[in-house]
């Protein structure tokens, strides 16, 4: 399969790779939300961490990904898009926009879903740590 130039660019120069510390440390930090999701379709794993400022804006985001090139590109792009947004704005990002931006073929749509899910899971984690999560927020789309 041929990859789009944008996928190749994110693969070669992934943005915002990393984490805000070892998994045991970030677990305790209230300003950090962690989302680790696995794709049931192919068994790949994506980890997204957000650091949220006092003003409720996402100051920084970091990702790690064990997955195909499209999954790496989707998560790299997701970190770019959510930085500077409020957590609620970030929740608006849908996988279809990622698919469009990266020109992903149909078999790779689930890789973008993984990115959308990792954003939501990271935000839920942040909200839970800060006592902001009530059950109605715990949506499971698709």
């Amino acid at each position: 399969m041929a990859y789009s130039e944008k996928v190749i660019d994110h693969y070669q120069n992934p943005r915002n790779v990393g984490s805000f510390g070892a998994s045991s440390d970030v677990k305790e930090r209230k300003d950090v939300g962690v989302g680790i999701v696995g794709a049931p379709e192919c068994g790949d794993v994506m980890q997204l961490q957000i650091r949220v400022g006092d003003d409720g804006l996402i100051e920084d985001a970091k990702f790690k990904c064990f997955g195909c090139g499209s999954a790496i590109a989707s998560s790299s792009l997701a970190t770019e898009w959510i930085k500077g947004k409020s957590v609620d704005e970030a929740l608006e990002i849908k996988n279809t926009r990622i698919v469009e931006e990266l020109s992903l073929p149909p078999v790779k749509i689930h890789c973008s879903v993984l990115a959308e899910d990792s954003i939501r899971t990271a935000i839920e984690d942040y909200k839970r740590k800060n006592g902001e999560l009530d059950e109605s927020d715990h949506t499971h789309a698709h």
Partner: protein
Amino acid sequence: MNLPIYMDNASTTRTDPRVVEAMLPFFTETYGNSASRNHAFGWAAEAGVDRAREQAASLIGAGPKEIVWTSGATESNNLAIKGAAQMYAKAPMGEQGRGHIITCIIEHKAVLDPCKRLEREGFDVTYLEPGSDGIVTADLVRAAMRDDTILVTIMWANNEIGTINDIPSIGAVCREHGAVFHTDATQWVGKMPTDVERDNVDLMSWSGHKIYGPGGVGALYVRRRRPRVRLQAQIDGGGHERGMRSGTLNVPGIVGFGAACEICENEMESERERLLALRLKLENGLKGLMDVVEVNGHAERRLPHLTNISFGFVEGESLMMGIKDIACSSGSACTSASLEPSYVLKGLGLGDELAHSSLRLSLGRWSTEEEVDFAIKSIHEAVEHLRALSPLYDLHNEGIDITKIEWQSH
């Protein structure tokens, strides 16, 4: 060195220019139908086919009359498996209990799918599970034998991991039990010494395009003596190939197949040694540079030119993206349209991670040391790049066993 380099010879091989040269006159000069018995064009074509039959037979220690031409290993397997099952069936079509067949879960689909069809048509099939080293032993086959076992089909060498089964011993078990023994030797013949008499084989498939010959042509060895094996034809028509496979012969293709067999026979010894040295260099080079690099399948019982390696914590498709100058394949789910990881690697019972992180690299007649050095360097760089991105590598470095984690999935 020209890029990209080709390390996917288990998929198909470059046609040897000497083979192409042998074929060419049969397109434009000696273009008769080998079944035309009454003119010079037909005789010349038939002479080409006969010579190829001798070359093919010589490579495997058979007689020329024991070679049936087909369109490739897929067809040879279909003819052998369905043809033998139907010929030796213990009950007619439409009834159950028509006989028992033994095969293995990591066979090629061109063996598994014919077996599945026969299952639907009233035959019983046992699918053996190999050990975690990928080997099907004669003991496994013996333990599965039943009074009504009519056919055993076990591949000689596996196309994904290159492991080699003990075909002579499996063949001996089949003889003891009076079952017909077929082996899919597509990855074996032409690379390794073969003698159907010594090795107790009754039916054997192989293909032109895996031995530096043309695609779309294959052969089935069908034993004629001690015991004579009979097959029900799968393609009916003009009665070619002693009625076992009708259809005007692909004369240039068959001539090329024969030429390819002869070159393999003459050059096998030196080629084997050269390729083994290159493969060991490749495997040791990669293992020396990185941790958690595993060669899949039995360590010694394997083809000289093929290796299947898992690079822990790195997904195969993204790895291939990082080594775009190397043509190879991966068992990762992400590379397949069905999003299923390789059933062969899964069949070793070692968990999905293995398949997920695997690359199959298969060397060939024109592989060079320079290419191997290039491959080691590129793969190393790509693995390092991806491990820096891998959440699993972090967990591994934190001492967490990733096989024990249950991921939150949506």
